[in-house]
């Protein structure tokens, strides 16, 4: 089965397999009945005549001695196209009989088998129903109830089973979702449909009962995308987690990563920045590699995704599945080791008939969630005085710079935070049209997002368009496409938020003519006007053009066989252009343009085969695929323009010009096989193997890696001994073991190469080469061996449900960018070295705390933790202090001095840190040699959080819905750049909450203003744990009764607040985001955390 088919399942008739194996608590009587009735009423009229003929004419060839009836039925299924359905409680199929059926028809055999019992049968097309002769199905007398059943979008639902509880009496809804049934006032109607939560509604006085079905999140029969196909949740053996669907709509987010952060156990999303259009980083179950890429592999609609996550419009997403254990990811071979994220977009629905038009949009305002206010003018002046005192400097003026003194004397101050920031806003509009007939289904959507940031000049716009089409050409051929286009626009010059925080309050942004002053703190030239960037021209676009096509052949001659061809071509284009001119203090003017083009094609041949025999079910999937990626970049720069009039549109007008091109590419060839076997839906087995060849591996290797895995599952709840335990709805034990790979190195790492460089001789630059990369021709993939034990459970009618999993991974031949002694002439080299281990626990829990007719409260909890450990680096069990890698420790540790406080006046430094001054950082003398040296550095902790978690509480009352989502990250240490401004502290402004030691206040946390001279490279590591009220959504579904008057199917109004509050001990703007200090990194990512309040509506016509 393929990803494209899950939508079809919506109204699909039941497969033979599922009917036959239905039994026990997991698949209740109610369910069985509904299936039976579905078939009766849909098929009876059409096929009964023909069926009867077939039953009479088909001859059997079998003979049994003392055999159970159910085995005989199984054999009949094997020899014919018939399938049986029956209820264990009604029909005794365990009875053993003798049977000689050589040359007999099916009808004859059945008559013989059930002669003398109260069991009878009915043949409907290829299905044979067994039931008790006195079944009350057709014997009733009551009032007539009618109504319409709709889905969560208000769409009529055909094929929904409606049964009077406790009987097999029922019906199914027609194409318009309408039904009619006879029942008494004391009866209860049960509405059920695959993938939807069943609803029980007492009849009472009502003669019309309209029902809206809701999708069931943890339902056992949920169909889940698993990669190169999909599976029933209950049949899955690997670790596959679905991201809650509620996270995918109604949130004012621009990137799917923002939506799913904290929502799923084992998935760690970190947002390093709030800059509009920024994404973040993802990790699944920790880090398996040291230097190679550790981001999960994203598969979009079955095809390896190529682009940035911004390219995927969250509103187009139908579902997201996270594959975590070896069994689930092994089918992705050398790209699976970091976990796999399967994203499926929405597709057309053939049951919809008339086109369904949906609009989903929201508008909101953005503010700074937490302000790190700069010091007041008074404190700013005091700080300079204190700096001079503490450094023994004579103070000659109230402030260091002439312009500051002028403003000070004139009493002019500026609130620079106010100058550089603004009220942001966001609007997002999505329009989709979907629908279809039996032959063609379509989903077409367009979206426009516009975000104006809270720092001046920052903005993000996204325009996207998607077209998903499926067409059934004939009985055996189906074709389709998934095509989309996304344009990301981050144009515009930015205000420099870092400088905005640094500017003296005694400086002004504009001169008397209203132009920006280049150096407001003149003659200080270290900090230029933070608003200068707004005068520059900046174009920053990225474009993703993706076209996927598939053809699926289901030949009639081999039942269960399917061949699918996927072909995909993707073009990513990134385009930038920039012009900085005189107003930005570029006195000659500089224009720079760049174009990056990456093209990627993938061809996949997928062969699948499904076969049932007896209680055995087998699925086979085979893959043969190839992929090729080509990258090309061109870049040009021109300087020295006459004036700024032409911006970047006429580069030849500049005097000095430079340009560059880059190119590389890689190829991948893969074969994969997977077998899923299940016996009686109780015992499950999955075997997979994938072989990948990757061009970027060393010339000395054969470039191929093989990655096998196996998984076992045991549906305990399906066992007969669990029959009586009604409170256990689901209980499944899973185990998997296997290997996956990581190839994540860039092309061209395996050859020693020289960079091209330039040097001027006689007024012209000549090109030279400089050897700077040492290649490794033996470079190969790294291998992760992983085991996973998991329990899926659902108790008390799924009031309590969840999954607990423990895992252990060991990675060897790690792709390691190993630092080399500089004596070699190189800095580092890629090598397969070292071993690493992760042991972890993922817990997902969903509880329905209160469930009444009107009020419902449910809680979703997830928790993940893992312990990461380097087992070995170079095969000799030795640490690598130079790289900060220690055996037995996590990969990312903080290795530094241990700060114990601040040296106070009068304390004896001679025994610990001779030379330390009062106000200096006090370090612990770890080795007791009475001095602080490099040997006193210790491991202070790990950088990655020790555990992360998320909790959603959802309250619904009638049509109102309130959802509160909390997200947390605990136990990580990282360097806090806001704790030190080193030797700049005296000449720039600092946060108001920033303190410093003085002889008077004797602070034991903040060092003095002269302490930077003796920092010794201390990086100020601090705990960045936090608990965030990530979002709260309050929504209202307008009642159908109201909507019907306006011919509206569905209307939901909502208000959402995002990043509402953060609980943390971290000093600074935000613990999760990264901030660079001046002169390092990229100031454009320094951006305050953003709170968004938005109002939205979803409307369906």
């Amino acid at each position, binding site marked *: 089965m393929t990803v494209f088919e899950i939508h079809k399942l919506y109204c699909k008739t039941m497969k033979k397999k599922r009917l036959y194996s239905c039994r026990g608590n997991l698949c209740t009587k109610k369910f069985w009945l509904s299936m039976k009735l579905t078939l009766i009423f849909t098929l009876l009229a059409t096929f009964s005549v023909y069926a009867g003929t077939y039953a009479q004419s088909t001859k059997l060839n079998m003979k049994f001695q003392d055999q159970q009836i159910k085995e005989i039925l199984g054999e009949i299924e094997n020899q014919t196209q018939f399938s049986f359905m029956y209820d264990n409680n009604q029909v005794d199929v365990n009875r053993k009989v003798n049977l000689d059926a050589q040359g007999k028809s099916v009808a004859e055999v059945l008559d013989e088998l059930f002669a003398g019992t109260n069991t009878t049968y009915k043949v409907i097309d290829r299905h044979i129903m067994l039931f008790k002769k006195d079944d009350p199905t057709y014997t009733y007398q009551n009032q007539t109830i009618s109504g319409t059943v709709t889905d969560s979008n208000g769409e009529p639902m055909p094929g929904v089973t409606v049964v009077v509880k406790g009987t097999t009496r029922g019906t199914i809804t027609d194409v318009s979702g309408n039904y009619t049934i006879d029942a008494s006032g004391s009866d209860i109607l049960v509405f059920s449909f695959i993938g939807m939560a069943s609803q029980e509604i007492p009849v009472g006085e009502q003669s019309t009962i309209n029902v809206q079905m809701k999708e069931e999140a943890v339902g056992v029969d949920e169909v889940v995308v698993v990669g190169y196909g999909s599976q029933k949740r209950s049949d899955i053996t690997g670790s596959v987690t679905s991201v809650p669907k509620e996270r995918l709509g109604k949130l004012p987010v621009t990137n799917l990563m923002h939506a799913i952060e904290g929502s799923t156990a084992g998935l760690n999303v970190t947002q390093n920045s709030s800059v509009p259009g920024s994404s973040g980083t993802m990790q699944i179950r920790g880090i398996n590699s040291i230097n190679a890429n550790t981001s999960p592999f994203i598969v979009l609609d079955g095809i390896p995704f190529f682009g940035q996550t911004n390219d995927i419009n969250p509103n187009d997403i139908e579902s997201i599945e996270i594959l975590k254990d070896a069994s689930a990811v092994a089918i992705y071979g050398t790209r699976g080791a970091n976990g796999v994220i399967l994203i499926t977009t929405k597709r057309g629905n053939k049951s919809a008939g008339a086109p369904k038009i949906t609009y989903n949009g929201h508008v909101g305002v953005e503010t700074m969630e937490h302000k790190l206010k700069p010091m007041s003018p008074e404190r700013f002046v005091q700080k300079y005085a204190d700096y001079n005192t503490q450094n*023994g400097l004579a103070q000659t003026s109230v402030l260091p710079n002439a312009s500051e003194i002028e403003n000070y004397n004139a009493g002019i101050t500026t609130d620079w935070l106010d100058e550089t920031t603004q009220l942001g806003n966001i609007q997002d509009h999505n329009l989709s049209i979907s629908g279809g007939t039996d032959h063609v289904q379509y989903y077409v959507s367009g979206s426009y997002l516009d975000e104006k940031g809270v720092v001046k000049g920052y903005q993000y716009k996204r325009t996207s368009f998607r077209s998903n089409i499926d067409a059934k050409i004939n009985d055996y051929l189906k074709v389709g496409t998934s095509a989309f286009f996304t344009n990301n626009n981050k144009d515009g010059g930015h205000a420099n938020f870092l400088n905005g925080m640094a500017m003296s309050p005694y400086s002004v942004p504009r001169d008397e003519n209203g132009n920006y002053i280049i150096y407001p703190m003149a003659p200080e030239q270290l900090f230029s006007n933070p608003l200068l960037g707004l005068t520059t021209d900046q174009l920053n676009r990225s474009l993703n053009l993706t076209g996927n096509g598939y053809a699926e052949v289901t030949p009639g001659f081999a039942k269960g066989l399917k*061949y699918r061809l996927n072909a995909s071509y993707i073009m990513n284009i990134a385009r930038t252009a920039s012009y900085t001119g005189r107003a930005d203090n570029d006195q000659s003017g500089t224009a720079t343009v760049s174009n990056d083009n990456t093209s990627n094609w993938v061809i996949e041949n997928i062969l699948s085969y499904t076969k049932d025999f007896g209680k055995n079910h087998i699925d086979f999937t085979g893959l043969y695929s190839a992929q090729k990626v080509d990258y090309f970049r061109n870049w040009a720069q021109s300087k020295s323009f006459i004036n700024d009039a032409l911006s970047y549109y006429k580069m030849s007008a500049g005097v000095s010009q430079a340009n560059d091109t880059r190119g590389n590419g890689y190829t991948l060839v893969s074969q994969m096989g997977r077998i899923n076997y299940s016996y009686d839906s109780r015992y499950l087995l999955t075997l997979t193997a994938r072989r990948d060849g990757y061009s970027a591996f060393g010339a000395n290797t054969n470039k191929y890696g093989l990655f096998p895995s196996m998984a076992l599952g045991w549906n305990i709840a399906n066992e007969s001994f669990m029959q009586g335990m009604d409170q256990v709805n689901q209980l499944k034990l899973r185990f998997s073991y296997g290997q996956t790979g990581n190839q994540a190195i860039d092309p061209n790492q395996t050859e020693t190469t020289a960079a*091209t*460089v330039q040097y001027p001789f006689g007024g012209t630059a000549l090109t030279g080469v400089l050897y700077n990369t040492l290649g490794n021709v033996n470079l190969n993939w790294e291998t992760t061996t992983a085991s996973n034990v998991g329990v899926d459970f659902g108790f008390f009618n799924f009031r309590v449900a969840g999954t607990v999993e423990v895992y252990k991974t060991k990675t060897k031949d790690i792709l390691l960018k190993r630092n080399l*002694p*500089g004596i070699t002439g190189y800095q580092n080299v890629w090598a397969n070295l070292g071993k690493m281990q992760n042991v972890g626990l993922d817990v997902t829990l969903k509880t329905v705390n209160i469930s009444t007719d009107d009020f419902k409260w449910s809680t979703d909890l997830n928790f993940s933790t893992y312990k990461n450990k380097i087992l070995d680096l170079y095969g000799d069990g030795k640490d690598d202090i130079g790289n900060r890698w220690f055996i037995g420790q996590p990969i990312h540790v903080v290795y530094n001095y241990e700060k114990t406080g601040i040296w106070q006046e009068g304390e004896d430094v001679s025994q610990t840190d001779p*030379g330390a001054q009062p106000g200096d950082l006090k370090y612990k003398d770890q080795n007791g040699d009475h001095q602080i040296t490099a040997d006193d550095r210790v491991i202070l902790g790990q950088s990655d959080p020790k555990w992360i978690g998320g909790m959603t509480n959802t309250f619904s009352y009638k049509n109102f819905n309130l959802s509160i989502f909390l997200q947390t990250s605990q136990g990580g240490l990282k360097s806090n750049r806001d704790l030190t401004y080193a030797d700049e502290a005296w000449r720039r402004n600092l946060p108001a909450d920033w303190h410093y030691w003085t002889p008077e206040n004797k602070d034991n946390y903040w060092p003095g203003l002269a302490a930077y001279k003796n920092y010794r490279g201390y990086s100020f590591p601090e705990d960045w744990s936090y608990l965030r009220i990530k979002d709260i959504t309050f929504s209202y579904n307008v009642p159908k009764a109201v909507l019907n008057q306006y011919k509206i199917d569905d209307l939901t109004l909502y208000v959402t607040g995002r990043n509402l509050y953060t609980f943390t001990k971290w000093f600074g703007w935000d613990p999760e985001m990264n901030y660079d200090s001046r002169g390092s990194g990229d100031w454009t990512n320094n951006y305050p955390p953003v709170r968004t309040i938005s109002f939205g509506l979803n409307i369906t016509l």
Partner: protein
Amino acid sequence: MKIIMKKYIKLIVSSWLLLTLITACNNSFLDEKVLDAYAPATLDNKLGFEASAIGLYNHFSTWLTTTNDQTILGMFQLGTDITWNPMGRSNGNARPYMDYATLTSTDDAADKYWNYLYKLINNANILIYNADNSSANDMNADELAAYKAEASFFRAWAYNKLVTFWGDVPMVTEPLTEPKTDFTRASASDVNALIISDLQFAVSNLPDVDAAKEARANQSMARQQLAEVYLRTDQPAKAEEQCTAIINSGKFSLVKERYGDTSFPGDAFSDMFRVGKQRRSQGNTEAIWVLEQENPADVPGGSTGYPQQRRVWGAGYHDIQGLTMCDSLGGRGLTRMRLDNWVLYDLYGKNDMRNSRFTIHRQHYFNDPAAKYDAVRGLPVPYGKDTTFELGGDNGQLKIFAIDTVYKLAPYTLKWGQFDPRDTFGYGMWKDFILMRLGETYLLRAEARFKQNDLDGAAADINVLRNRAHAATVSSSQITMNFILDERARELVGEENRRETLVRTGTLIDRAKSLNGTAPLADGNIETTNGIQDYNVLFPIPQNEIDLNKDATLEQNSGY
């Protein structure tokens, strides 16, 4: 039915065929080709050798143009006998080199310099190896030897720095083909032998200065370097021989008259340091090795970084009200170092051209063209005393403080002066680097002669320079090692690697203590040399190198 089946078969077969076509030859499909970087095999011809040689200059220059960090140039000047650290001005990488208690094994500057030198050595090794093993047919033996000589010069230059500053160091003479982490320190005498043999080869195979392309290695460069190495290894006769060869070559002469564009005030000595007049082709007859540098705003690829020399040596006079940056004041400086009082007040005799206002700037005059400074423009800026000027009208007062002499008005050398009105902030300094000139050749020969007890000869060499500078001549009885080192300061301050000279001559500790002082001055506003100990003559072996060199022990220098 059969017809339908045929259709399926066709479909399946054609799909498989399609894939087979694309991936038909799996091996070639997975072959990798480096498209945008050169591999060694692609460089075995004359153009490849030429490019490899240019790469050496590129890397060589990176130390001169580094901004990582901005104070790092000071490591070779602070804590010696010539410069002080105005409080707060050199607290980056350079600081441990005047505040010796903080010079430890994790020192950044030592680590960076070490790595820089070995990278130069590796690239030189590759060129030397390729020259020895070339199969190129577009070069003859002489051409190959010339490239080898050019690489040998750089290799010797780098090892000379290593052995001077660290003593025994690991010696690598061939390119690496795989990672290596078992280096040990070779004895200084072995390293010296390699340096001398490389330089001898360079002397024999490099073209003379007229035959060499400008700014490329020439024979005299190799001789001058060799002379210095001979002096360091106590072979003064051989040193003298090399110096004499340069002096008598007839290729160079001291600049005694003004030359080139003389439309601005100046003198012969300062002309050599003027942008546009530094190169041999621009009239500088004294130039042995001038490394070219172009303003990248005009010549793409004109520099490998943002040279900090002007900012390190120049004063921050732009911080004084009423003063504005200009060409004759040398552009914008930050006074990361300040010449010490010994250099400023004790070193030069009367009329010494090397101390003229065109080379060492001492007196400022208010020059801000803004109308509010009309009242003071043209007046001398008071030095060392608190003074208040009334600017008249609404313009208030202008105050000058005694403390401004610490870095805002500190006298400074104009050898690194450069001003581009398009770029007043001047993060980079865009002028050539004078690395070797004939003036120093005389000083090296004077040292060689002194060491051979030829005091007359030494005095004669020194007087050649003093005559050019219009300074009083000296007699042989005045010649001591200290006098020669003083004379080097007079002639080469700002140019030479002062620390290297003092370490080479074994005089660092004494001179740093006696001439620079060991206690803070001006209420702590000026730091001198703090806590230098005997072991500080050598740098610490970078701790990173010891840590990464995991398969053998790199012994640390004693004291660290």
